[in-house]
Structure formats: C-alpha cells, structure tokens
C-alpha cells in the first residue's frame, strides 16, 4: 500500500525547546601549523567558552565534526580528538559528511539541545590537513568507487572542473563573472584575523593564474588548511543568563543526492535546494531572496558560491553571477555573501570551516563581526556547506529575533 508521505522530513517534530548560540571560536587557518588537532580544538573551545562566559564544567554534551580520517592519518579520529575538544567524561559524538560537516556539526548540536537532552552543548570542528603527504589532495584519490572510478585516477579538482564547465555551459556564464567571487572573498578576508589567503587581486589575476584542471585555475580554488572552530548552543533559560543578544537557530536542513555522481546533472545543486527547503520551512521563510539578509554559502571554489546561492534560492538559476557583478553580494550590498572572506580567503580546513560559515553568521547577527560587519541591518541569515561526493547539502538558518 502506498502511503502519503510528507517528502520534507523533520517538520512536524516536537521540539522541547528553542536553541540559541551564545559563543563561537576560531583558530588561525594556515597551510601548516605546529599545533596538533587536539591543541587546535582546545584553542577554539577556549575562545568560544570565553565569549559565552562559561567554563568547561558548564558543558553537558559535545559534538565533534571532522572530515576524512585520512587527513590526520588516524582512524577513530573522533576519539583521538576527544580530550582537546572537552569531550572527556561527558556524552560525546563525532559527525561526518565530508565537506558538509562544518554545517552538519551545528545541526547535530541543535538536536542535542532542541530535544531537551542537553541545555548546553559544545560543537567543535577540527581539521589538520597538512599531516597528509605527499599532498592533502592525495587523500581524495580514495573517496571514489574503487571499481568504476578509481582506476581512472580522478581527483577532486578535475571533478569540480567538470561541474564548473557544466554550470558555465548550461547558464552561459563566463569565467570572468565567476572570478569576481574570488576577488570579493579574498578582499573580504583582509578583515579576518584568522585568514590564510587574504589579498587584493583582480579578475585578470584569476584568469592568468596557474591552470590546475581547466577551466579551474589556482585562484579559483580555496587552499588546504589546518584549523579548528567551536560554537556553544544553549537552551533559552541558559541564554537569558548569559547575554541580552543571543542568536537563535531558526531552521536546519540536510539532504543527500545519489552517490552515482555521474548520473546527476551537475549544473544545479539539488541536494542544497532540498536541504534549504527543509530549513526554510522550519524557519517559516517563503521568499529567501527577500527574507534573508546575509548569507554564507559554501565557497571552496569561486563558482560554488554562485552554484550554492542558486541552490539556496537566493538567486534564480544562472542569476548569481549577475548579482555578484552588480555588487549585490558585496559587504555593503543588499545581500552580502561570504562577508567572512569565505573558504577562498580565510582558508579551507574542511570541517573547521564552521568558523567562517555558522560562526560568522552568528557574529554578523549578534553585531559582533567587527570590521567584517555588513553595512545593512540584519535579522536573518543562512549558512550552508556541501561535500561527500558533491552530494550533501547542509543548511542552517539563524535569526536574532526569536
């Protein structure tokens, strides 16, 4: 018998309580750091606790997000990172959806608090990519289907080149328009103290940079990094004791498309659209372009910011490059995107990019982003990440109004 099933999951759930973010932390992002993953986690957690005005003894449960074990070179990486993450002697779990982890970990933190299982949950994300040799990119040789894909020795950059080509072809977009994203984000990163690749560059610099897998060139791509970030998520009665200006989680969503990535049309990120549909419905957002004030779409490549803006419904298909060219997505524009500097400017320690996505959105909505604060008045924002075999979309909507 066929049952009528609501396709968007998680919307009729009974939440015990609302969830607020009251503190965040981020380490510097660098290509290579001396600190171990545990130490990086420790620094991020200390900073988040300090901002929230809490001590580690106040933390009830811990969620750790970290991407492939291959980077740090340790199986059971979650357990390895436990002590530096404040997970000793309390409920602790690791979540992992590849590049989507940086937004998935706070979603898992949300479950912990919304369900009432915890009133204070610490979310920590860590990545130390530089341990992996000969190059962090080498680890990606082992994410493919071992029978069908791996014998051809693809790597991620080449696959993204295919996706970028498809996006450009279907929407008739020029590389010049895509390069503007890299120019914007690297310049935004000049105001981020953690930034690895902040610089003023031009469209010509991007178009003339080293070819990696055409159409992808060096300056289209974010760098591998080491780093960590942390967030503190609490119940309303705790938030009231800590701050007058908590930022609330208004909606969360996640979705995965098929692992048979060659069987998908790569020009549009359906998995992001599905995840966004779930998060927006929970947040009662019907017109994201009008109702979202600031966005942190996932930008490991310049075209991905545009691709994801379209998936998030912040632009129509093929329209994101036009908004970028017109300055709409600049920090003083009508819909600032990646005001943090994004992965392109601040760096890309996979899971730890929570610090430039959800943490940045929190700082923006709490008006604590300092020099990075967007010009317009902000109430609601969206952060998103993406990963696995280009198939997972993870979305969080935050609001400074409950």
């Amino acid at each position, binding site marked *: 018998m066929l049952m009528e099933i609501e396709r968007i999951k998680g919307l009729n759930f009974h939440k015990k309580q609302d969830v607020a973010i009251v503190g965040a932390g981020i380490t510097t992002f660098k290509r290579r750091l001396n600190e171990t993953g545990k130490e990086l986690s420790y620094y991020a957690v200390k900073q988040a606790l300090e901002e929230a005005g809490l001590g580690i003894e106040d933390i009830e449960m811990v969620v750790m997000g970290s991407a492939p074990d291959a980077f740090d070179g340790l199986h059971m990486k979650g357990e390895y990172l436990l002590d530096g993450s404040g997970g000793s002697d309390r409920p602790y779990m690791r979540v992992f959806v590849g590049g989507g982890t940086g937004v998935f970990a706070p979603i898992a933190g949300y479950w912990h608090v919304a369900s009432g299982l915890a009133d204070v949950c610490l979310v920590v994300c860590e990545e130390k990519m530089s341990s992996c040799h000969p190059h962090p990119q080498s680890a990606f040789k082992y994410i493919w289907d071992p029978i069908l894909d791996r014998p051809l020795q693809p790597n991620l950059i080449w696959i993204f080149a295919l996706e970028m080509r498809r996006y450009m072809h279907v929407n008739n977009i020029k590389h010049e328009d895509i390069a503007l994203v890299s120019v914007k984000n690297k310049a935004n990163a000049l105001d981020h103290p953690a930034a690895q690749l902040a610089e003023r560059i031009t469209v010509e610099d991007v178009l003339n940079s080293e070819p990696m897998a055409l159409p992808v060139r060096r300056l289209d791509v974010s760098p591998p990094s080491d780093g960590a970030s942390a967030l503190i998520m609490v119940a309303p009665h705790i938030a009231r004791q800590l701050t007058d200006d908590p930022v609330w989680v208004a909606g969360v969503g996640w979705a995965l498309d098929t692992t*048979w990535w060659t069987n998908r049309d790569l020009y549009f990120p359906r998995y992001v659209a599905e995840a966004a549909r779930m998060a927006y419905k929970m947040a009662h957002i019907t017109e994201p372009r009008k109702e979202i004030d600031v966005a942190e779409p996932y930008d490991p490549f310049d075209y991905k910011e545009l691709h994801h803006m379209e998936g998030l419904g912040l632009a129509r298909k093929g329209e994101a490059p036009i908004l970028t060219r017109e300055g709409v997505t600049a920090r003083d524009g009508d819909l600032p995107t990646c005001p943090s500097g994004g992965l392109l400017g601040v760096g890309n320690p996979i899971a730890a990019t929570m610090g430039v996505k959800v943490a940045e959105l929190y700082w923006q909505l709490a008006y604590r982003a300092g020099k990075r604060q967007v010009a317009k008045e902000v109430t609601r924002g969206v952060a998103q990440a993406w990963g696995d075999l280009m198939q997972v979309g993870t979305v969080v909507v935050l609001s400074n109004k409950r």
Partner: protein
Amino acid sequence: MVFNEKIVDAGELKHIEGKIELYWIYTSGEAGDRFFKALKDEGKFLAAKCTCCGKTYFPPRIYCEYDFSETEFVEISGEGCVRAFAVATLDNNEESLKNPEIYAIIDMDGTDGCIIHLLGEMDAEDIRVGMKVKPVLKSKEEREGRITDILYFKPV
C-alpha cells in the same frame, strides 16, 4: 598559538613519520561481474533497466535506488555525448602533467546514466559539450575486465 610565523616545511618541526600499511580487495559485485564479463569477452556494454519505473542505469546495478525494485540487463551501444569535460594539467600530488589529460562525463545513449572517462584522438580546443563520442577498447587479449579496458572515448 603562532599567528605570524609561516611554516613552509613541516619536516622542520618536531615530528614523527608514519604510514597506514593496509591494502584492500574490492569485489565488483553482481552487476559489476555481468558488466565487466560482457565488456571483456564480447566488447559489449550492458545497462540495467528498472522493472518498475523504466529508468535505465549505467553503469548497471541490480536495484533501482528510488523504487527499490529489481532491474534487468539491457545491451547498449556504448556511444554517447560529452556532457562536461576538464583538461587536467596537475596530477593528484599537484605535480605538473607533461601531457594534459582530458576527462569527460559521457551521457550514454539509451540510458539515464553517464560515466566519467578519458577523451582521446582529439585536441582540447576541439571538444564541445554535446559532442558525439564512442569508446575505444583494448584488444580482446589485453582486456582484463576492468573499466580501463576502455582506453578512452573518441569522436564519432
């Protein structure tokens, strides 16, 4: 922690080198066995059609991931169209490739699926999205029942 210092060679830090010394044996599975046997012995291409919705999977598999019903094998030509392509100039270790390699997603005729493979016998400048291509196989004696039995795809 260090904010200003830039570390260029991690080997200069106090460190230990380590390896994970394991290797794996991956089986090709029920659908994979049929597919690779047809390719190796007969030079033929198999896809799999869902007995419920009719969606035709390539590479073939024994189930439809949307209906969770069974599939049946169907023979296809092996020809297709270029859906997207990339010209790789750096290898997996970010070393420069002497001869750039051209990878493409190929939309396989008669199926709802695509595969990724190499393009050959053409210059990067001449490739267009939508271009018709056909597979070039290794000789029957050289074929091992692997995806690399297809050397590359070339223009029709």
